[in-house]
Structure formats: structure tokens, C-alpha cells
């Protein structure tokens, strides 16, 4: 489904990502791990179109997407969250979910002004989908609160819900468990598994919480200092000497 081939990203003299490859199949959870500064988020930024990679290819469903503008990649069905939650803080929770469903603004400008039945139907559908996902992540009661007033864990869940209302095929989560307490992490764990099982979404995950990664990943890619270090199932990674060295230092 997603294939990243020898991706490189150079910022001036700094080679932040060097020949990283990974692939994601349908209904699969693939994690990218590595020490801080290893270039995980840079890989994400290249995949989601925020950066134009300086080398390599990214194929999504057989089509090259590297260098395409971010909003087009998102419309193809690759949607991401951010390491630091990026909500529309002064808008309400439900408005956050509505915005995500408004990709084609111009086509319905006139019908919206006139309030045609077709337009209303679409608005209602968007509302229903928003309500569905709010219920799913347990935020329905807070639908009309400002998103900025939610607790941190709720903001994290809202961000995932906001991605899901766009009906993505591939979800990219950048450290979704950062700042969550153990109970919330557990909930998140279940949510991500259910996204895969019940909604047929593939997930690419960057995470530092090893228990989460080991629990839910089908495969793991390890990056160190921009270079691919290892890849395999959680069991293989756990036993890989290079990975242990990278994380714990040379003995």
C-alpha cells in the first residue's frame, strides 16, 4: 500500500534522513522507532508532503507522492497527527471535525449560500460522521466546548478523531502517547487496534513508549541517526543486537 524507497532528506550540510526504506501493507500497524533526533519525524514530514525529499521515492497505492503538496497527499487518504497536538483551539470540538470534512470548498459555495437540499444533506452527513467519531473517542458530551479547553488526553483523542472523519486509508501518528498517563495509553492502544480491525486503516506509528509499540505493531522499523538500523517483527527487534546497542549504548 505504502512503499518508501531509499528516502533521503538533506538540510544544507545535514543529512537528516539517509536511504530509509519501509513499506506498509493493508491493515497493518508499522512503527518507526529510534532515539531522539534519529529523523523519525522528518520521515513523516516527507511522507505527508511537508518536506520535499531530496532523494528516493514514496509510492502510495502505486502512485508517486513525493514532492506533492501536503493537502493533495492528505486527500489521497494519507492523514497524519502531530507530535505537539495541533487543534483549532478556538473552535469547538465538533467544528474541528467538520473542518476536516471540508475538502472541496468551492464546489458548494453557491449551493451553500442558497441552502439547497443537496447541500443540507451533505452537511448533515458530516455532522453525523462527526457525532459518530466523537462518541467513539468519548468526547460527544464535550462537542460544543472549545477544543483548546480540553484536557491533554482528550485533545490527543480529538486529533485522531479529526483524522478519522476524513476516512483515511493510512493514518500516520506522531508520538500519540506522549504526555498520556498509563490508563490513557492503554485506551489509546485499544483505539489504534480497533482502527485497524474495524475500520481497515493502516497505521504508521512513531512512538517512544516501548510497551505500546511492542504490543500493537505488526512490524517495526528502527532508525538511528537518519539511517535504517533494523526492521522486523517486534520479537525480532527485541532480540536485535544493533538495536540494543543503539538504545543502551555500546557495552
Amino acid at each position, binding site marked *: 500500500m505504502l512503499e518508501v524507497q531509499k528516502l533521503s532528506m538533506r538540510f544544507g550540510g545535514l543529512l537528516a534522513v539517509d536511504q530509509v526504506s519501509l513499506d506498509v501493507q493493508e491493515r497493518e500497524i508499522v512503527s518507526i522507532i529510534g532515539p531522539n533526533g534519529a529523523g523519525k519525524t522528518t520521515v513523516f514530514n516527507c511522507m*505527508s508532503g*511537508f518536506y520535499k525529499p531530496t532523494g528516493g521515492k514514496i509510492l502510495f497505492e502505486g502512485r508517486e507522492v513525493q514532492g506533492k*503538496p*501536503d*493537502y*493533495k497527499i*492528505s*486527500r489521497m487518504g494519507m*492523514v*497524519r497527527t*502531530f507530535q505537539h497536538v*495541533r*487543534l*483549532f*483551539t*478556538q*473552535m*469547538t470540538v*465538533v*467544528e474541528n471535525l*467538520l*473542518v*476536516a*470534512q*471540508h*475538502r472541496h*470548498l*468551492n464546489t*458548494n*459555495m453557491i449551493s*451553500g*449560500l442558497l441552502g439547497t437540499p443537496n447541500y443540507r444533506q451533505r452537511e448533515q452527513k458530516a*455532522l*453525523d*460522521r*462527526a*457525532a*459518530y467519531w*466523537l*462518541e467513539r473517542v468519548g468526547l*460527544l458530551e464535550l*462537542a*460544543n466546548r*472549545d477544543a483548546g479547553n480540553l484536557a491533554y488526553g482528550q485533545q490527543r483523542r480529538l486529533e485522531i478523531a*479529526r*483524522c478519522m472523519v*476524513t476516512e483515511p486509508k493510512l493514518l500516520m501518528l506522531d508520538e500519540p502517547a506522549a504526555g498520556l498517563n498509563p490508563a490513557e495509553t492503554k485506551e489509546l492502544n485499544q483505539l489504534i487496534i480497533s482502527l485497524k480491525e474495524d475500520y481497515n486503516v493502516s497505521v504508521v506509528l512513531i512512538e517512544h513508549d516501548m510497551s505500546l509499540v511492542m504490543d500493537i505493531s505488526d512490524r517495526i522499523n528502527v532508525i538511528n541517526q537518519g539511517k535504517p538500523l533494523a526492521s522486523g517483527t517486534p520479537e525480532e527487534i527485541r532480540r536485535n543486537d544493533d538495536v540494543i546497542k543503539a538504545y543502551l549504548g555500546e557495552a
Partner: protein
Amino acid sequence: MAANNLRHALFCAIVTLIISFPILGLNLEAKGINITLTGAKTSTYVAIVLAAVVVFVFQIFRDSFMGVLGKLPNLNPLAGREPMEQSKRVKLESWILTGIVIFALFWPFLVSRGSVDLATLVLIYIMLALGLNVVVGLAGLLDLGYVAFYAVGAYTFALLSQYTGISFWMALPIGALLAGLTGMILGFPVLRLRGDYLAIVTLGFGEIIRILLNNWTTLTGGPNGIGGIPDPTLFGMEFGRRVKEEGNTSFHETFGIAYASEHKIIFLYLIALVLAVITALIIRRFMRMPVGRAWEALREDEIAARSLGLSRTAVKLSAFTIGAFFAGFAGTVFASKQGFISPESFVFLESAIILAIVVLGGMGSQLGVILAAIAVTILPELAREFSEYRMLIFGAAMVLMMVWRPQGLLPMRRIHIKLNRQE
């Protein structure tokens, strides 16, 4: 603590002296061709010193003074009450607003000609401020050259009427569309800019338009402006004493009433009122539509908006275009009201005042912006005697507002959306 307080108070008093002495205490007088500097009356000096003393005392006792102010009973008798139920309040608000609009329809027949004229100006500013509110308040794009689009609308009508003899009703959509087009054209180069950079570029753009109008004398008449802009007609009926155009009839003859110059002014006021109401309704509609939410999303977090598939180009350009469109609307009405326009009317100060209206009213809040437009336009008229100190009062009011209500007169309220639980 006390010493600190004293030092601060002394500093404030000295600043007061430094500022007020040259402004009030020194006068320039023309004697022949020379200018001499003379002192003011003794009473003025006494007043300056007294002012400094007042500032000093206030600053020393500021904490206790402000503390007492805070303990005063709340002036708003409704403050302690439970907020009304959402649906009920919306209904009540819409009734009150409808009532105000209906009252505004009949109001001009009761008051003097000057008041109606002023009210027309207020309505023009309401249109402008509502339009700028889209760009600044909703989309978060700081536009300091908004008056350029106002000028485009006004000059479109003036030029077209001069060269092709077009009527007000034809010019209204053309002026608005051209202004909208200008907005879009300006939008392209500034797509990547935000904040300060955007402000500078739009400021420059506003000046370019004004200077262009000023210097392209062959077309626009330069600083002499364009006169003889026709008044609007009502189904081909003119409001002048004598019919200017072949085939038209005059209003007072058709209805068999005596000619009165008020008719025209009231008619213009009613046009402005209807247009302002239309503007408010359309923009209100936009705010509840996908495009309106997209504007706000872009203001809140551009990166997140893009990651969700919103095209920055489409969102920003639509905000610029729609904002400019309504400025063009206002410009056409303004040209028709004045009958004469020159680049003088479209200076940067106008942009600043419109922006001030939006900020005072509360970014994004339509009702707040309308209230602020009324206040900002009418207050200087009421305070005509203090005309010398108008900008001073204006500035002081702005500072006070920013201290007490930084979010504006009526901050924007989120729309409550009812959701049905999905199974």
C-alpha cells in the same frame, strides 16, 4: 515596594510634563512671513502642572484605587443571572435584530437630514468592517490596505459613469466584482505570507492604488478627483428636481408630491441599509458554511488545516476575494453618496479606522463589529467641539478598550451545534 511605587509615579508625572508641555504650553504664531514661538497663558501652565500632580497621585495610590474599583458592584444587572438557554436566546436575538432593522427602515422619516446622511456613512462603514472582518477576524490575515478595494469600487463607478454613463444599479455589481478580482490578484503574491509580512505588503498595495489614482491624471483626474457621479434611481425615477437623462422620470412628479431634497438622501440611506443587511446576512451564512470554518481553521493552525486536505490557496484567496467584494459594494455606495471622489478619501487612515472597528468590536463577531462601526463613526461627530483632540480621544478609547476588554466589545461566540447520537 513603596520606593518602587514612588519612583514609578514620579516617572509617570515627568512623562506627562514632557508630553503635554510642548503640545499645550508652546504656540507657534505667524508674524508676517516669520513664525515665532510664544508661551501660552499662565492658566495653561498651571493646568499642566496640575495634570502632572493628578497623574502622580493616581499612580501612587493606583493599587488601592483599582482594588476599590474591582469591589464595586457589577454594573451589569444581568451579569449574575444564569445564561439563557441556547435556542431561546438565538430566537430572542433574531427577533430583536429584525425589530432594529424594521425600525431603521422608518427612522429616516422622523429625523433631520444631517442625521440620515451620517447614518448612511455609518452603514457604509458597517459594510466595510463586515468585509474586513472576514479577512482579519475570521481568516486571521492582517490586511492594512483594505481601503484599496473600497477605492476600486468607488472609482469603478465614477469612471464608468463618466465614460460610459452607466447607472448606479449596473455599477454596483461591476464595482463589487472588480474589487473582488483585485482582492484575488493581490491574494496570489501574498499567499505564503502571514502576520507582519502580510501587513506590510497589503499596506504597500493600498498605497499603490491611491498613488496610482493620484498620478494617472489622464484617466482619473488625479487629485482633482471625479465629480458628477449620478445618484441612484428607483426603477428609472430620478431624485433630482429636473430629470437629467432622457427617458427617465422624476420621483416627485411620478408620485405627485412636492420636490424635496430629502428624498434622495433617504433613498440613499435605504439602499445602504438594504446592502448592509444583505452583506451581514451573506457573511453570516458564509461563517456557518464549510468555507467559513476553513477560514477559521487557517487562522488557528495553517499546518493542521493543510494536513487535513484544505488547500491554502483556495482558503486564502476566497477570504481576500469575499472581503474585497464587500468593500467594492461599499465603495460604489460611497461614490454615489458623495457625488464626488478623489484619492483623498482613500488614505491609509481609512484602512486603520476600519481595522480599529474590527478590533474594537471583537474579531470575528458580526454584532460587535456593527456596534463598533456605529460608535467609531458617530462619536467623532458628537464630539465636534473637541475636533482638535479627536485623535487623542480616539487613542485613549483604544487604550482603555485594550485594558478592559481586550477581546472586543462583543467577542465572537461559537455557534452551538446539536448532534444526534449515532449508533
